[in-house]
């Protein structure tokens, strides 16, 4: 069974993602903060990590970089509530930052179930990535 770690501090989004992916047949673990997420990641094997870019006390970009450094073979799906392109500085975009840090794909909130499921399938099976995005 594909195991997924969800690092998202939002009390409604995290459990909703777990429920959606659980019904899709994924074994999903929710970490409500970065520390719990890192400990869970180190304690057991995961096939995918879903990380919110904007966590309260640590940058999600940093978590992505750390997860990628520890296990470069495990794909990471970055999620964010922000517009990735910054209108005041078009050169900088969060998608590029997250991708540079090791994220395989990015998904912007709000997203629907089918978008989440498509992104997860594409991230777990990289051959599908070019088809989905």
């Amino acid at each position, binding site marked *: 069974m594909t195991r997924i770690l969800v690092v998202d501090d*939002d009390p*409604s*989004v995290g459990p909703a993602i777990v*429920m959606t992916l659980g019904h899709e047949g994924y074994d999903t673990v929710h970490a409500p903060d970065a520390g719990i997420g890192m400990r869970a990641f180190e304690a057991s094997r995961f096939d995918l990590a879903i990380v919110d870019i904007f966590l309260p006390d640590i940058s999600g970009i940093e978590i992505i970089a750390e997860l990628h450094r520890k296990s470069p073979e495990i794909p990471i799906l970055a999620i964010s509530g922000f517009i990735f392109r910054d*209108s005041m500085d078009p050169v900088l975009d969060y998608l590029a930052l997250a991708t540079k840090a090791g994220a395989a794909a990015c998904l912007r909130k709000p997203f629907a179930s089918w978008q989440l499921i498509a992104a997860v399938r594409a991230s777990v099976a990289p051959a599908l990535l070019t088809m989905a995005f």
Partner: protein
Amino acid sequence: MTIGYPHFNASPASPLLNSAVEQLSRLQIDLMSDALRRAVDDVGAAMKHQLSEPLTALLLYLYEIKRAGAFDAAGSSAALGEIVDRALCEIERVCNIIGQVGEAVEASVDAEAAIAHGASNNRVRVGVVGSPTARTNAHRLTPREQEVLALITGGCSNKEGGYQLGISTRTFEAHRAHLMGKLGARNAADLIRMTSNRDQRL
């Protein structure tokens, strides 16, 4: 908006006073527009960050309700399914509206910032951040982000910072995340290091 000072204007022999009144009026306009920019900034951040999360959860939960009821395709369940479909459509509409409003707010903040930056040479600027670093970045950060930067580099937590600015912790976090993205900082330590490095150069 301006305020008249009739007893000062009636005195032609006080150019110094008139100049002071003019400066005060400009200061007041600056204070007003800074306050307005901050308010717009907070709404924009809340739109983009805080609303996106409950909307995501609603979309996911409604889909689960739809999936749970999908096995009964006849009678009252079918009618219920249609209601859920309509609810999903309505949430998607709200998501689109929020997206559009968020973009409009962002564009208006950009325009205000550009105007303030262009006029900064002959206006009394209200410094929200004391360090020269923040002023050099003023054209990139919104007034609210400058305040948030000052509080973070001063060692404030998100909760303390939100309390000091009279905004929610989540809104403070949204500003913090956005300005970190703008400055290319990966964490608060990065921000403080970047700020102190620039201060040394100036």
